[in-house]
């Protein structure tokens, strides 16, 4: 039986996005849940996971204000914008939405639903 802990970090991101928009702090928090790492170690992992998912076309970045508002920029520009916002922070343990939110693309949604189906034993 597949469980949450069998997910890769990318699978976890898109599986979460099936149910709700995922915020920056949630990515950060999942890394914290999996391993006791310093903030300095968590940040590059978080940015790496997000960049990977954006460049693979699995998620898009945006803001949540009266619904999800996607940023009007390319995946690579989104990844760069997120890094530019996040890296200079003195305390990188952000609050939900400080940097951005994520929404699945159709490809991400397909992968996310496949993960949930696997966990449901389907």
């Amino acid at each position, binding site marked *: 039986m597949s469980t*949450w802990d069998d997910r890769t970090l990318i699978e976890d991101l898109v599986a979460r996005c099936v149910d709700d928009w995922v915020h920056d702090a949630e990515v950060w*928090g999942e890394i914290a849940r999996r391993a006791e790492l310093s903030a300095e170690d968590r940040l590059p992992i978080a940015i790496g996971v997000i960049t990977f998912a954006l460049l693979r076309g699995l998620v898009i970045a945006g803001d949540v204000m*009266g619904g999800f508002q996607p940023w009007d920029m390319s995946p690579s520009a989104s990844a760069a914008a997120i890094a530019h916002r996040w890296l200079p922070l003195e305390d990188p343990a952000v609050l939900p939405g400080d940097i951005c939110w994520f929404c699945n693309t159709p490809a991400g949604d397909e992968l996310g639903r496949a993960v949930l189906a696997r966990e449901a034993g389907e």
Partner: protein
Amino acid sequence: MSSIRCLCAATWRRLLTAVVAIVLVTSISQIRVVHADAYTYDGTAVARVETGVATATRSASPEVSDRPTRRVESSSATWGTSTTPGRSFLATNNVSSILDSLPRGRQSNVRTVESDADLQDLFDLFSAGGTPVSRPSYDGQWYQLEDGCQVGIRNDSNSGGRTIDVRSPDGRIWKVHIV
């Protein structure tokens, strides 16, 4: 005749003593329950009992009309420490214990309630005594609690309806969705 009167008086005294004893035992047992001083959620009702006074009770069934008056005190949650790997702050108290007792969603950090009214009650419970924080980038209300925990209630979610976002002092995140 007088001995019969004496017998009756003694019987009455015994009966009265027994009634007083029953009343006392009942009262003491009620006080012990109320002394629990904890939040509880059994899947159908959110409640907090405080020393000497039951302060918050709410049925999850919207048709129930005789709900007790709700008075929420400070949640003052404490995120304890544990040696259990990966669950360092899930101590058995307040916000964390309530989250732990809620039905789980499909994600490791998601808990669920049955209605928007339950969600609002839960948020009131969490945020009581907290300090409102202005966060223009967050579409909802956000509170800082005394123990370092932060909670927000978001106006919208992808699954529909409002959602509670909780951030523990060590950066871990929970969401509470409406089923």
